[in-house]
């Protein structure tokens, strides 16, 4: 049981990060129906900036309290990513807003490649170690271990999600965003500054991405210029799983995907151990199964396959995602 609980905690942490990144995808999609494939790279930029700031501060000001350093790192990473988010919307997407849908998709991939290679030039191709300044206190809950960083990630993402929900549903900007997502032209006619709203969406998404980047860096203790690619893909899948364009869907999808992945990696090997099938164990596989041996059909290396398999199954039965039908609610 403690193993199951541990896998849940692992999955929840991972899922929280996916959820925050997925929000960036889903917000942009909700408003201008663009899949911003460069969003994963924004997360990477956030991690890289934070890493640089932490490294510089820890060296320049010895004895500075780690939480302050962390705070400054986040305070640097967020504006940089906001600028990147604003910049890419302004340069790569706004001129193409009236172009066929495929055009901005291609520029999104282009921006993603450009950002990756800029990071390669600046931060080298080696995996960089993310300074471990916070220490890592561990807590034990019913046999499962949870670290202070994990708790911070889970609580932090809950706070961010709450904040975003409040922003979208309680503020004037949120109203403008929702109006824009329903109908760009009509919202414009009603006096909403469309360009500002769309820029704001990108900037908010990028800010979330920056924080996700710092979280991932701190959690794994490593940063690499390609780290955004797979994370972005997973988060995008999470957004689709929950119903792209839907805020609650992105949160649900992210957490679900994280948990599915962790449980998949943890249990798929055991469930596909053919030695559990008695007639196989006694017959053709007797040699491999003797003395507690095993014949695992799908090992833990199938964890990604498993996650995407679940995604496909969900989409077959609910093509618009888990919470996708409430189209009016998107953004």
């Amino acid at each position, binding site marked *: 049981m403690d193993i199951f609980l541990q896998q849940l905690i692992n999955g929840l*942490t991972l899922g929280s990060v996916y959820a925050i990144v997925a929000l960036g995808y889903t917000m942009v999609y909700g408003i201008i129906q663009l899949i911003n494939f460069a969003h994963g790279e924004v997360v990477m930029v956030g991690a890289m900036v934070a890493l640089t700031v932490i490294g510089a501060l820890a060296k320049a000001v010895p004895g500075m309290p780690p939480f302050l350093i962390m705070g400054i790192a986040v305070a640097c990473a967020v504006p940089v990513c906001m600028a990147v988010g604003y910049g890419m919307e302004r340069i790569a997407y706004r001129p193409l807003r009236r172009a066929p849908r495929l055009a901005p998709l291609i520029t999104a991939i282009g921006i993603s490649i450009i950002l990756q290679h800029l990071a390669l030039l600046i931060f080298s191709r080696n995996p960089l170690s993310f300074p471990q300044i916070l220490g890592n206190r561990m807590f034990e809950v019913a046999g499962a271990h949870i670290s202070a960083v994990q708790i911070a990630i889970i609580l932090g993402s809950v706070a961010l999600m709450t904040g975003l929900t409040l922003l979208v549903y309680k503020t004037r900007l949120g109203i403008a965003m929702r109006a824009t997502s329903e109908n760009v032209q009509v919202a414009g006619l009603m006096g909403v500054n469309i360009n500002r709203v769309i820029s704001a969406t990108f900037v908010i998404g990028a800010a979330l991405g920056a924080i996700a980047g710092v979280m991932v860096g701190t959690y794994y203790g490593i940063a690499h210029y390609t780290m955004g690619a797979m994370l972005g893909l997973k988060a995008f899948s999470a957004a689709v799983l929950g119903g792209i364009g839907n805020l609650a869907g992105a949160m649900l999808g992210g957490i679900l995907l994280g948990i599915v992945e962790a449980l998949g990696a943890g249990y798929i090997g*055991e469930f596909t151990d053919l030695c559990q099938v008695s007639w196989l164990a006694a017959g053709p596989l007797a040699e491999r199964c003797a003395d507690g041996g095993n014949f695992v059909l799908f090992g833990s290396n199938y964890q990604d396959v498993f996650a995407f398999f679940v995604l496909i199954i969900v989409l077959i039965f609910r093509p618009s995602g888990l919470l996708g039908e409430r189209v009016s609610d998107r953004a």
Partner: protein
Amino acid sequence: MSLSPVPHSKRIPGKRVLAIAASAALFALAGCGKQEEAPKPAEAPQAAAPAGVTVKIGHAAPLTGGIAHLGKDNENGVRLAIDEANARGLTIGGAKITFEMLSEDDEGKENKGPIIAQKFVDAKVAGVVGHLNSGVTIPASAVYAQAGIPMISGSATNPKLTEQGFNVTFRTVGRDDQQGPAVASYLVAEFKPKTAAVVDDATSYGEGLANEVEKALKAAGVTVLPREKGKADQNDWKAILTKLRGKKPDAIFYGGMDSSAGPLLKQGRELGIKAVFAFGDGACSEKMQELAGEAAEGLICSQAGIPAMASSKSFLEAHKAKFNVDPIIYAPFTYDATNLLIAAMQKADSVDPAKYLPELAKIQLDGATGKIEFDAKGDRKDAEMTIFTMKTGKIEPLAIIKAGQSIKFEDFVKGAAPAAAEAAPAAAPAAAPAAEAPKAAEGEKK
């Protein structure tokens, strides 16, 4: 070359190796016509002028770039051996022989290997010591094989090098695939695990190493859990580690590079896994400390060969006296490689590669790195592997594994120079300045 400065070059995918080897072979065809006359100039003057013959020995390593200091280290080993031989004044085939080192910079680049090799063939060298990187040595070896020139690498550890069927290819270091059994035997001897887990990163290097470890562990009666696999760029190992924690292994081996091994180790300790973590040379660097923090403390990892400071005292002293620095890693191995070539020439009483090659294949030499004998493939018999641990952020040698026997590092250092009682204290300071050695070596170059 198995330390990590250029880990990529040694793990080149098979197809590329073949392609390079093929192009190298083509390259070599051009030089084929000259091949027969290659040794002649060395011999021809013998009769005419028995007064003195100059015999060229090639040395190739990266002498510029990120691991130039290691290349220089290799070169120093060769230079020392050659100078010693010249000082002894050898007579081979009735002629007084002066050896001359021809040192070339291969930049650690795969495509430079065959080019340098061809240069050596054209210069009619009698033998070659090098190259440093496996990725460069493998394509170059095809050229030497074509020309029939014996080649001994003091640092290339990739098994492929001697699996090509060339009879002129040798090495004085161990092979990567001897590491697996070495780590396993150390784990079994020191930690006596009942259950062990083996994880790999699904690359040919990681999986190959993990397979060897698993085989050796099973042979020692250890229960090995079902293999877990990640990816080369995997950061999140928690799911796999949680699963392993439930099975309570006493030891966990991971076959992969430091970039994924660091997170694995860190997360393993976070989950409260108490087992000993062991790695191959891909994760045997101080980078592990950066990536895993405190969790890196006490890890076990292996590298081919022995630390330079464990080589013979006479070598260490001569090296220090000549270059005023301590050897970094592979200098004792290139020193031995050069002496092997010279000894074989003496035995055959000829500097003709075709004549001394059979002697080289069956040679027995007591070198700076211990007894050297080659097997049929040209690999060193009972090559040593060194087991390291992480101690206060530094990689430190723990034991030398030789022929399945684990020898405590201190005992090995003592045994390396049994004549001198103060061997151990003399070797100890050699460990400390290793970090400064590269700079000093650079200085010496100028």
